[in-house]
């Protein structure tokens, strides 16, 4: 057995110092909203998250198992998000109804295969606000769109609303998620004033995604291409959306 005589001085101490620095930088976290947010008076709310529900098979799967997509537009998740957001912001802002082409906002960009390209292109949502939302001229627009998270051993990407069913040698488990992000866009210059993903809700979940999620009984999994008939699934998703909206807007300090 051998110990390097300078191990502590040469490796461990610099490691701890850098770790402390990184923690401090990382916790330079949020939180006072910029002055620009404070100056907004009239806002419109756009939501384009709830058109589709995705079932992802992960863990022990067959080579042919692929993701399944279901339409859940009849559930009215976007209407719920707009209503709930308006209620949460109503005491602070004058919320005005707006019309928009949901499909444009819901188109959801696919992540480019070359990671650095993500950093180089401009945010298309700003242009959608300028060209597809009516009326124009409000102080700001609160835009709710799908967000993504990685999951599992190969860092698969999931987005929007859905369930991940993970197969294990002994049993399986399922995680319901609602991944979305909120932008506040200046209504005159069409610049993003602030942008935040919906925050994870529970500190004691074994499965952790980048946004709100909760374990659900595998019996809730959509079957026979008819998730629209699954009232339990709708109720669980609605609950997740409502609770996470309150937490996320609290993070903005908009309410």
């Amino acid at each position, binding site marked *: 057995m*051998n110990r390097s005589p300078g191990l502590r001085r040469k490796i461990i101490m610099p*490691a701890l110092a850098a770790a402390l620095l*990184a923690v401090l930088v990382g916790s330079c*976290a949020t939180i006072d909203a910029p002055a620009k947010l404070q100056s907004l008076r009239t806002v419109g709310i756009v939501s384009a998250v709830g058109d589709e529900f995705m079932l992802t098979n992960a863990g022990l799967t067959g080579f042919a198992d692929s993701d399944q997509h279901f339409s859940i537009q009849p559930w009215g998740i976007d209407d719920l998000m707009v209503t709930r957001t308006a209620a949460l912001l109503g005491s602070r802002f004058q919320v005005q109804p707006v019309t928009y082409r949901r499909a444009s906002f819901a188109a959801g960009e696919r992540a480019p295969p070359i990671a650095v390209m993500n950093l180089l292109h401009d945010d298309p949502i700003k242009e959608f606000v300028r060209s597809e939302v009516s009326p124009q001229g409000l102080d700001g627009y609160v835009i709710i769109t799908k967000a993504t998270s990685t999951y599992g*051993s*190969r860092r698969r990407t999931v987005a929007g609303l859905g369930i991940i069913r993970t197969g294990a040698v002994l049993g399986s488990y399922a995680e319901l998620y609602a991944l979305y992000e909120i932008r506040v866009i200046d209504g005159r210059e069409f610049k993003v004033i602030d942008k935040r993903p919906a*925050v994870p809700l529970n500190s004691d979940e074994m499965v952790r995604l*980048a946004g709100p999620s909760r374990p659900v009984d595998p019996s809730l999994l959509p079957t026979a291409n008819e998730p629209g008939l699954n009232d339990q699934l709708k109720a669980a998703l609605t609950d997740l959306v409502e609770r996470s909206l309150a*937490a996320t807007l609290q993070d903005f300090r908009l309410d």
Partner: protein
Amino acid sequence: MVQAGRVLLLFIIMVSSLRASAQSAVTLPPPSFTLPFLPSLSGLWTVTIGANGNVQPDFEGARQDRLSALPIFSIHRPGSAAGFVSPRDGASFALFDWGGFRAGPVGKVRAGRTASTDTGLNGLGDVGFAVELGGFAEYFPVDWFRTRVEVRRGFGGHDGIVSDLSADVILPIVQRVTWSGGPRFTWEDAHATAPYFGINAEQAAASGLLAFDAKGGSHSAGAGTQVRFQVDPHWEVHSYVEYDRLLGSAAASPLVTLRGSPDQVRIGLGASYSFDVGGSGAP
């Protein structure tokens, strides 16, 4: 050595990717600057800290083992880390990620060798640490199977080319326990092998070993296995065993045949704790 420690630290920060969970919310003043192309520093971050203990050969080809310890540290967005990492993987970053195929730059630190630390090295002199930089590619046809190749070029202790190939089956046994394992193979050219296994005339005279001209080729083959146990949302423990059988010039070197062993085993055990900082958290 100081530089080696810094490089090692950087790699630890880059590569550590352990599952995390939320706990606390800390409110601090916002940062006084922003970087236009980078995500905001504000919001929720997950910090993971821990330690890893390893038993491994004193040097590559050694018969004696030594104990070492390294800190575990990472900071990332909640849910953004995880992913399978083998103990042999270099620190890597995927620039290309599409359909289970990932590729990008990779780096690894190869520890130096000090003759005074082991009697088997008497007369052979020291070899400085090497930083190996190159590229990696890996492919997951399904969640539970990964193949990976790394090709790296050494700087410092050696200036040769090293290529690692591995395959791993990744089995979630239950939600909290994941087992993985599979075969490994390493190829090295003569420039990467000679500093550690070659013996020149001067070294031969000083060590009493026969002079040996190390060549490139198959370097080692073996297997590895790893178990991860998520104790609760905050604590995780993991353990691994990696076995390599030296091949080619590495196995034929008098340093190994007379004073060492071609069978190389590394055993590791570690634990980590994750917690959240920043953000207002859930109501």
